[in-house]
């Protein structure tokens, strides 16, 4: 238990420091340096600014990483066909029950049986947990880099199938189960 007490020596103030004026001048130098740094940024080199850290939000946006968990969206294969087979696993796994799906049967296809006739995600309910992406056996739903979902009425927050496909876009599919498997 010994050596637990450590004596911290008070810093010895120099003459100027005791007069307070020295540190004041030093501090003033510090702030004016930042001031001119930001001023130069604003006036001359906004594109590669050095001192200012503010982002001008609506004009400048974050560059999200690829694994960013934003809003869930449905993806299509390279032929523009939805990968969702309406298995409803995402609907079951979704903790806040944001996903609602109306599966329908495909009559004239031999390799797949179902497709979502309607597919809705209520973005007000979604908690961006990513369970749907994890659970999806077809890799048909992904969390995309979409984080700014703002409307003035509740109805607009419910995204339908077309909108979700547009958000998800096309992802390369190696298997193409629609026609090859």
């Amino acid at each position, binding site marked *: 238990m010994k050596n637990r007490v450590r004596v911290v020596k008070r810093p010895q103030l120099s003459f100027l420091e005791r007069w307070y*004026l020295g540190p004041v001048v030093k*501090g003033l130098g510090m702030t004016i340096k*930042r*001031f001119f*740094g*930001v*001023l130069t940024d*604003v006036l001359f080199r906004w594109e590669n600014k050095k001192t*200012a850290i503010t982002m001008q939000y609506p004009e400048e946006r974050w560059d999200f990483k690829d694994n960013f968990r934003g809003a869930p969206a449905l993806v299509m294969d390279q032929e523009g066909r939805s990968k969702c087979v309406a298995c409803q696993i995402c609907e079951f796994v979704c903790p806040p029950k944001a996903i609602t799906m109306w599966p329908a049967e495909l009559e004239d296809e031999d390799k797949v049986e179902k497709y979502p006739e309607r597919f809705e995600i209520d973005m007000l309910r979604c908690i961006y947990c990513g369970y749907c992406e994890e659970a999806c056996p077809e890799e048909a739903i992904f969390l995309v880099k979409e984080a700014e979902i703002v409307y003035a009425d509740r109805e607009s927050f419910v995204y339908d199938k077309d909108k979700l496909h547009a958000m998800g876009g096309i992802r390369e599919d190696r298997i193409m189960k629609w026609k090859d498997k």
Partner: protein
Amino acid sequence: MKLLWTVVEVSVVATVVLPTTAALLVWAERRVSAFMQDRLGPNRVGPAGLLQPIADLLKFMFKEDVVPGHVNKVMYVLAPALSLVPALVAFAVVPYARGMAIADLNVGILLVFAVSSMAVYGVTIGGWASNSKYSLLGGVRASAQMISYELALGLSVVPVLLVVGDLNMQAIVQWQADHVWLVVPLFPVWVIFLVSSYAETNRLPFDCPEAETELVAGYHTEYSSMKFALFFLAEYIHMITASALSVALFFGGWSLPGVTFPDGSMGTLLSGLVFAGKTGAFLFLFIWVRWTLPRFRYDQLMDLGWKRLLPASLVLILATAGGVALLGGTN
């Protein structure tokens, strides 16, 4: 004719020049502080955010003017006006251009002190009438602080008067135009004047009456809407007056060394611009200091005022008097 001119001058200065400068100062304060903290500050309303003060003013005007039920109503309503009026009056003797001042008084600088010590009433009454602990503490602090630093401020002007031998502000500036800026021989005196004027205007590092981290907002905690805006305006006009005084007393007023302004209105205008520029530099210093230094503890503030600045200014008066006597008087 003279009277009419004075009326015009007063109304223009009191209702246009000073409030506009104060508004610009609020904008400058916000932008400069932002820049010093690696931010940008308000830059959306108008070019570079210059119309932000107008937006602020509109906000103040349209906010509900709450008079809390627990206040002393008469005093409560009176306090913002009491705070603003001395700030405006003190500007009267400022020699803002060659041969120009609203009131070219013989007692000049004394009027400033007489009036600016009235400013403490607005703050103290505001704090008292609000009937709230934060306001009261703020008001009490303000009164003690402003009275304490009034001494150091007053005494730090005495060396100037000793050297110049005149109380008239124009004469003081003229002396500096003829000889040398008083900051050169009286640099330590100027430092004391500067520190005291920061305390007088309740600005950081001496903003104990407001002290938002301790007292919410100090004496104007209970104020809202335009009443708060008046307190706000008064603080900024005090700053302008203090800067203008610093310029007039120590930095040669409207004069520039080696520059002779042409006669006539052109020269007057140029001298006015020089004065405005110098005052602007001092206002920047106000802002710069505010966003650099932390607030003093209250006892440190009193210690600095009574035990350091007051004796120092007394010693400097003696030294200046000795110097003036040795060098054979002023005139």
